[in-house]
């Protein structure tokens, strides 16, 4: 593994994922523990791929980030644990995308590849 890649993994690694809630429509909310807290640079990076709502008046700020048709993630800035909601129909792809996005966080992330993957999921043929 290249030093840069291993460095990225150190920045944001999933330590543990547990099922927090299963909704009526099959949607699953996972509680995910990351090895570092979620900070603004990460959220700005995410904003490139979807819709970010950040409530900066709150202390600490609350955010929710959605890539339509793929997943929704929410949490408090400065917290290491987040909730991620995956729809039943794209559970596997949504989880994969989520992991790829985190793993690619850092310099030189392949945003084109990520966008293409998002589009595939949204169009229903990943």
């Amino acid at each position, binding site marked *: 593994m290249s030093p840069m890649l291993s460095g990225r993994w150190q920045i944001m690694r999933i330590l543990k994922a547990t099922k927090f809630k299963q909704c009526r429509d099959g949607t699953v909310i996972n509680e995910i523990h990351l090895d570092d807290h979620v900070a603004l640079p990460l959220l700005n990076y995410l904003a490139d791929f979807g819709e970010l709502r950040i*409530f900066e*008046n709150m202390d600490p700020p*609350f955010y*929710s980030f959605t890539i339509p048709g793929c997943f929704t993630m929410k949490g408090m800035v400065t917290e290491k644990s987040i909730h991620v909601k995956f729809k039943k129909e794209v559970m596997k792809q949504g989880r994969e995308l989520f992991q790829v996005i985190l793993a690619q966080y850092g310099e030189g992330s392949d945003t084109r590849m990520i966008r293409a993957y998002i589009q595939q999921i949204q169009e229903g043929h990943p």
Partner: protein
Amino acid sequence: MNPGLTYCNNAASTWPKPSEVLDAVQESFQLPYFEAGRSTIEGLEDYPELAREALADLFHFDVPDHIVFTQNATDSLNMLIHGFCAATRDRFHVITSDLEHNSVLRPLTLLASEGKITLSIIHSDKGYITVKGVEDALVPETHLAVLSHGSNVLGTRQDIGGIGEVLYDHGVYFIADGAQTAGLVPIDLNQTPVDAFVFTGHKYLFGLPGIGGFLIKDPSRITPVRQGGTGVDSGNLAHPVDMPAKFESGTHNYPGIVSLWAGSRYISRQGVHNVLQKCQELTSLILHECTGNDHITLDNPEPDLPVISLSLDSLDCEDVGYILLKKYRIIVRTGLHCAPLIHQKMNGGEGTVRISLSSINTPEECKYVSHAIREVADHAHP
């Protein structure tokens, strides 16, 4: 141990439990349980009998043997609804309401889809079912009504006495779902025309999860849907018809029953009127602080029970629940609270944030919760 939580999800399950409940359960483990008819042990406490007497006392009910233990309110409702249906030969009409929990709606929907019943769902008005509404829904084939005593969403309390009178006059069997009121609201079953009253242990009776039951006036109207060992009349292959064995087969949940016994005595000693009054005072503290805030919508500004459903204008209910937990360590419930029809009516099925208190909550906790809700409401603007 103080985990630093402010617990406001008592309509789901009360927490913490009074220490005397925990102590009684702990103590009951010291010796084998006395299992009537199933053990040679003697001289120990007969917990099911003690619990039946304590519950009979609490609910002003003369026949302790007509108190049946089940797993929870859902189990009780299923036994009663399916048992009534099994005892009734022809297809009949049932009345229920849009306030009901899925433990009522789902068994009835199943029976309707199987063609065994026809179903009328009465529409509530501001969380209340009226006697007139019930009267209007009656048809000659109506044999059963299943209605809640207290709403777990809006915190309204129904006039089961008035409703019961009309149903009694028309010969309709009335099952009242007291999951949200047992232990919280004074109930005099000797005076209330209800045929079966359902309770659950883990809510306002301060028992453990996994114990519940019902009180039944005329058990002959319900066929037991389960048969098995009862510890009595073992040589007979037909299931006993005597109460309470008719509806209690298999080994009891003894720790749960002990918790119910201790919880009922805890409430009786305080006086259920006082418990309700304290809960109402606590609820008013929060309501008072949240009323008039433009960002907060209260679904029922004047609940009878300690249940407050609300929503904020800029966040969905799940997000509010998340923030309350993460920032303030406040536990609430969010979503539909297993009562889908009333949510459809209130806000198109969006769900709410539900704050529900017990008499163990304190005024300080209520002030903290109000402060938190207001702070989130006032700052939640992206």
